C-alpha cells in the first residue's frame, strides 16, 4: 500500500502553549463513542475551549484568525496519556499537517506519523522564538522542510529534528506500513514457528 510523499508542510500557524497536554484534552473521551473518526475536528480541545470562553479568553482553536492553520506549535511532552488515535485524527481533520514542539509523547508521535501528520521537535529556546513570531502575525506562514530538516518563518530559521525512520517514512511515502509488514510473509511464519509458546513449548 503506497502513501503520498510528505516533504514540505507550509501554511499559517496556531500556538498552543503548555507542557504535558494530554490526549484527553485534545479529544475528550465522550467523543470516542463512535465507530469512525468522522467529525472529530468539531470537538478538538472542546473542554479547554469552553474553559477559555468561561474565563473570557479566546482559545487558540477558536481564534478566527487561525482558522486556516496548517502548523501547530506546542511545548513539552505534547500528547501524553491515552493511546487514542482520535487525538491526531482530530488535529489532522481540523486541517493541521504538522506539529512542532520541544517534545512529544511516544504513542501520540507514532499515531501521528501513521496518519501522515508530521511531528518535529525544536529546542525549547527555538520554540519560544517561533511562538513569539507566530503571535506577532497570524497571517505569517511557516515552512517545515523534512528534506533539509529546517523550519522557516519570516526571519527565523531553525533546525528541526525527527527520528530518521519517521522522517524517511514521510519523505519516501512509506509511512503507511501495513503493506510492508505483509511483504515476504514467509519471514513472519519462520519467526512465529520458532516461538516456544506457539509450539506448546516443545523443543525446536
Amino acid at each position, binding site marked *: 500500500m503506497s502513501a503520498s510523499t510528505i516533504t514540505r508542510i507550509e501554511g499559517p500557524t496556531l500556538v498552543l502553549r*503548555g507542557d*504535558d497536554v494530554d490526549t484527553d*484534552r485534545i479529544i475528550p473521551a465522550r467523543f470516542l463513542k463512535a465507530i469512525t473518526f468522522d467529525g472529530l475536528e468539531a470537538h478538538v480541545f472542546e473542554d479547554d475551549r469552553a474553559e477559555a470562553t468561561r474565563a473570557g479568553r479566546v482559545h487558540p482553536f477558536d481564534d478566527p484568525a487561525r482558522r486556516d492553520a496548517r502548523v501547530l506549535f506546542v511545548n513539552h511532552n505534547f500528547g501524553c496519556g491515552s493511546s487514542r488515535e482520535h487525538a491526531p485524527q482530530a488535529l489532522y481533520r481540523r486541517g493541521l499537517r504538522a506539529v512542532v514542539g520541544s517534545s512529544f509523547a511516544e504513542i501520540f508521535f507514532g499515531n501521528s506519523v501513521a496518519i501522515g501528520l508530521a511531528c518535529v521537535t525544536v529546542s525549547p529556546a527555538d520554540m519560544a522564538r517561533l511562538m513569539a513570531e507566530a503571535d506577532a502575525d497570524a497571517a505569517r506562514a511557516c515552512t517545515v522542510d523534512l528534506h533539509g530538516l529546517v523550519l522557516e518563518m519570516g526571519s527565523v530559521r531553525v533546525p528541526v529534528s525527527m527520528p530518521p525512520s519517521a522522517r524517511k517514512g514521510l519523505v519516501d511515502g*512509506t509511512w503507511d506500513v501495513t503493506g510492508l509488514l505483509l511483504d515476504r510473509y514467509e519471514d513472519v511464519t519462520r519467526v512465529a514457528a520458532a516461538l516456544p509458546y506457539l509450539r506448546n513449548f516443545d523443543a525446536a
Partner: protein
Amino acid sequence: MAETLFRKVWNQHAVRQLPNGQTQLYVGLHLIHEVTSPQAFAALAERGWPVAAPDRTFATVDHILPTRTLARPLADSMAETMTSALERNCRAHGIPLFDPSTGSQGIVHVIGPELGLTQPGLTITCGDSHTSTHGAFGAIAFGIGTSQVRDVLASQCLAVSPMKVRRITVTGRLQPGVYAKDVILAIIHTLGVGGGAGFAYEYGGETIDRMSMDERMTICNMSIEGGARIGYVNPDQTTFDYLRGRRYAPQGDAFDRACAWWSSLASDPDASYDDHVTIDASRLAPMVTWGIDPGQSAPVNGHVPTTADAPAGDRARIEEATAFMGVVPGQPIAGTKIDVAFIGSCTNARISDLREAARIVRGRHVAPHVRGLVVPGSQAVAVEAEREGLPEIFRAAGFEWRFAGCSMCLAMNPDRLNGREVCASSSNRNFKGRQGSPTGRTLLMSPAMVAAAAVAGEVTDVRSIIGAGARP
C-alpha cells in the same frame, strides 16, 4: 552475552529490518476492545484483508459498558452500536469475544492475566495505553493506536523503533497502609510524566520481588503515566504460581517446559542498562495527587507545592493545576474534601485491591455527602468478591456495587462526575475532565486511601485507620 529481558524478547520476535530502519516485530498476543478497533476493522474491509492470526487475537468489551444493567440493547445507542460492531467483527473473523455472557468479561488488562493469556516472553499489543500492565509477567507489552491495531490485525506484526531500558530498583519494606500504587506514584513524581519517553522501564529490587502479581500489575500499569510505553518485571516463582492452572496457560508437562523458558528470559545479573534509578520505598507515605497529571502528587501528610519552591520550568504548570483544582499552594493534602469515591480501573480493581478497601470500610460508613462506587475489574473478580462477602461489606458501608468495566476511570459510560465534583479515585489519570465532567476534579490514590477518604469525607491518612484497628 548478558542481556535484559527486553532485548531477549525483542530479538526473538524481530522479523526483519524495514526499509525505514524500524524493526518488524511479531506480536504474540493482540487484545482488542470496542473503542479502538472498529476503524481498524473497517480499514481491513476496505483493503480486502483477512485477520492474519485470529487465534492470537482476543476481544472484550469494557470501556463503554454501563455498570448498572447490561440489558440489551444498551440504553446509550452509541454504546450499543460499538458493542454490536465488535460482536460483528469478532464473528466475521473468528476472534474469541469475552462478553458478559461468557462470565469472563472485564477490563482488558484485568482479564488477559486472569485467563492466563498474558504470559512471560510474549509481545503483547492492545489499542490502549495501559497495555503496559501485562509487563508485570515479563512480557513486552505496549499500547498502540488504531492504525497500528489495523497493522496487527492484518499482519500480526508492527513496525517499531528501538527503545532504551531504564532499570528502576525499589528497595525497602513498605509501611502498613503504603501500597504499590504509592510506589508508582512516587516513581512518576520523581522521574516526571515525560521522563520515560523512549524507555522501557524494568522494575526490580527486593520490594518488587516481594510483591504479588496484582501489585506488580499496578506498578507496570502506570508506566505510561511516566511516559514509558513499556514497563516490566522479570518473571519469577510468583509469576509461575499465578499462572499455573489458568485457562490459557500451558498445562501439564508443557507448564514445566514453559517455566524453564520463562526463567531463561529474565534479565541476566550483569546485563547493562541505559539508565538506572533506585527508589527507597521504606520511607514512602501514601501518595495523593493534587494537580492535573499523575506526576503532581504529594505524600498525604504533605502540602500542595508553592511556585516559589518549584523549578522555574514547572511554575506555569503548577499555576494551571492549582487554578483548575481550586487548591491553594501550601495547602495541606489531608483534609481536602471529596464528593465521590471511585474504586475501580485497570490500575486497582483486582481482588486484592477490593479486599484491602473492604478491610478499611468494614463496620464504617461513607460520609453523608459522599457518593461511593465500587466497580470490579472483571466478572471473575466480582465472583471471587461475592464468594468472600465483599459486596455486602461495601453496600453496608454505603457504597454502590456495580458490574465490571472501565467505568468512571474515563467515563465513557453513564458513570461520571457532575460539575466540579472532587473524586478520590483508585484509577490512573487525573487529567482535566478525565472523569466525564469538563470541570470535575480527580485525586489519585490507592484503593485503601479511597476507602478511607470515603469514610472521612475528605482525604485522610489510611495509616491512622489501620492503626485504629482495621480488621484483617
